[in-house]
């Protein structure tokens, strides 16, 4: 494994037990055989629509829920339930809804103190207060804010607090699960800038999970597109967004609204028919084939694997070349 890979995910599967329509025991294939690597210092953007398994993937790589199958290697160490605890402080998670992820009955300083204690930091008195102040200041808050309770802050400030809590233990790797989608536009850009600054200062690596493609393009080095538990396409952020190879990525990108009434004229919109397939009984072959404009017989018979379609851009589609010509 090359030195600059921080996390390597291979053949990752996460199935949940569930019941089907007729009450029989069955499996939900939330993440199904996904492999990719995250480089040290990069922001890996993971996009996809609700229910595609992107949040499950974020939790599974942190072993918050153990994978059904597959391997996750972090900084050269293969993760397992036995060795995960000491590594926790190197990997943290930021949630979508900051209000729901901060204990409403705790003062901010106590929330941060708890994180320090959990990470085994044995600080006393003055040193501890200084540590808390330093964390608060690093996310643009003040020492006084530590005395207050979560409900006394706006959504944007609450998200700063959850970022502060994640950073308190000095992690290398942060999973950001929809960190700005519950925030107003005024705050969204502040949080994006804060995450970018912190990455610069501390050399952090992000797995940035979001459904908003414009935001993901802005913040990410590389982007992976998930559909129905599978990774469909992976590539450099700008290349993938300006020159998507997978028919699903094309449809997704063409659906993103642009804040300019004249932009519509030059765009070709690919409208998807129908609904994403069931994760309980996914279709044979390619999971996108029932909604795909280019699907042929082979797509039902054989599952496409990620392959290089030029310049390191990976795409799991039998028809990628044909889709590129006709688009």
């Amino acid at each position, binding site marked *: 494994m090359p030195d600059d890979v921080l996390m390597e995910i291979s053949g990752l599967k996460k199935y949940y037990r569930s019941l089907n329509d007729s009450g029989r025991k069955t499996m939900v294939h939330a993440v199904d055989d996904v492999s990719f690597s995250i480089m040290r210092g990069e922001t890996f953007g993971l996009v996809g*629509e*609700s229910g595609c398994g992107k949040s499950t993937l974020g939790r599974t790589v942190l072993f918050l829920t153990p994978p059904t199958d597959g391997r996750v290697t972090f900084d050269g160490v293969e993760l397992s339930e036995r060795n995960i605890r000491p590594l926790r402080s190197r990997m943290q998670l930021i949630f979508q809804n900051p209000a729901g992820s901060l204990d409403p009955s705790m003062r901010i300083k106590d929330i941060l103190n708890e994180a320090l204690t959990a990470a085994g930091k044995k600080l006393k008195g003055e040193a501890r207060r200084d540590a808390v102040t330093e964390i608060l200041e690093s996310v643009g808050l003040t020492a006084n804010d530590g005395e207050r309770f979560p409900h006394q802050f*706006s959504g*944007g400030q609450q998200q700063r607090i959850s970022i502060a809590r994640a950073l308190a233990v000095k992690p290398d790797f942060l999973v950001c699960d929809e960190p700005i989608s519950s925030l*107003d*536009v*005024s*705050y*969204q*850009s*502040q949080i*994006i*800038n804060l995450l*970018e600054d912190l990455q610069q200062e501390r050399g952090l690596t992000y797995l940035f999970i979001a*459904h908003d*493609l*414009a*935001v993901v*393009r*802005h*913040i*990410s080095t590389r982007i992976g597109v998930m559909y129905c538990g599978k990774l469909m396409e992976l590539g450099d*952020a*700008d290349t993938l*967004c*300006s020159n998507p190879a997978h028919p699903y990525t094309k*449809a*997704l*990108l*063409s*659906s*993103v*609204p*642009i*804040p*300019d*009434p*004249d*932009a*519509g004229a030059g765009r070709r*919109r690919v*409208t*998807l028919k*129908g*609904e994403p397939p069931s994760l309980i009984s996914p279709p044979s072959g390619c999971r996108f084939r029932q909604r795909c404009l280019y699907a042929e017989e082979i797509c039902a018979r054989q599952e496409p694997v990620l392959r290089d379609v030029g310049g390191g851009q990976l795409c799991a589609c039998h028809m990628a070349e044909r889709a590129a010509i006709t688009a």
Partner: protein
Amino acid sequence: MENVNPSSPLLSVRGLTVTYKGVTASDTVRAVDSIDYDVYPGQIMGIVGESGCGKSTQAYALIGLLGGAASVNKGSVKFDGHELLSMSRPELEDIRGARIGMIFQDPMSSLNPAMTVGDQLIEPLMRHKGFTRSDAADAAVQMLTRVGIADASRCMRRYPHELSGGMLQRAMISMAVLCKPDLLIADEPTTALDVTAQAGILELLKELKEELGLAIIFITHNFGVVAEICTHVSVMYAGRIVEKGPAHDIFHSPAHQYTRAMLHAIPRIDSVKGARLEPVPGAPINPRHPPEGCSFHPRCPVCVDNCSKLRPEERVIDGSGHSVCCWNYNVKEVSENA
């Protein structure tokens, strides 16, 4: 469309003011503060702003759906010549659902979970149009098919929880337009949906507007969606409309600093990454203690003396109907950057 004269506004809102009463007098929040706008037949008027700016409250006020502590203090809402604010409840009930349709953000919680989709579709037709049950059912199936639901008769027998968000929103749209209203109020109709489903719904609303000659009030916080669908835009900040005009003018020559800031603050899918985002400076106001004068002045980069003292009046910019509430809207150096 019955008796609607296209050269006069279908809906005319003047000085509409809504307050939420608090426990004490100082807790009272003026959520909507003297707003004016007109909607003409065939227009899609976007009302855009951040959470708490009053965009949904003003829509509920139009059609008498405010509840609890909220009340209309003053203003006038004329719909096709009739004053809605002074109507009795039965009079309003005859208009709501029949001539004014409404779709809400979350279809799951705005449909009755204990009734089939079909029964909920049939009800307004029987109530407003005097259809028999079977005629109403036929019309409902037709409309569900029209809005893109593949197996409409099967969908009629389903309960809301059995359908996906995108399907439910289509069902709710068909419910809102079944009685062929003149005006459709859509409150964040695509916010709960994925982008691909959102694109389909926006397309559908544009088609229905053409087919049925609807006027639409489209409430959203997303400037991208506004650009996609709206012909006209009103930008709201802290209970007031700070800028309004044709969509093209709002996006290409925004006059208010808030509109400009909002357009710069969000990344665009069609722009190459690299540039740092420019957040709107400061934080949204506390609605209990709105600032004196222009409510945006504490965050405004071109604030002048007047701004903190006097509320800016609406100033017309050009003949297309573009207007702005700003004391200092034609500042040279800022307009060059915009």
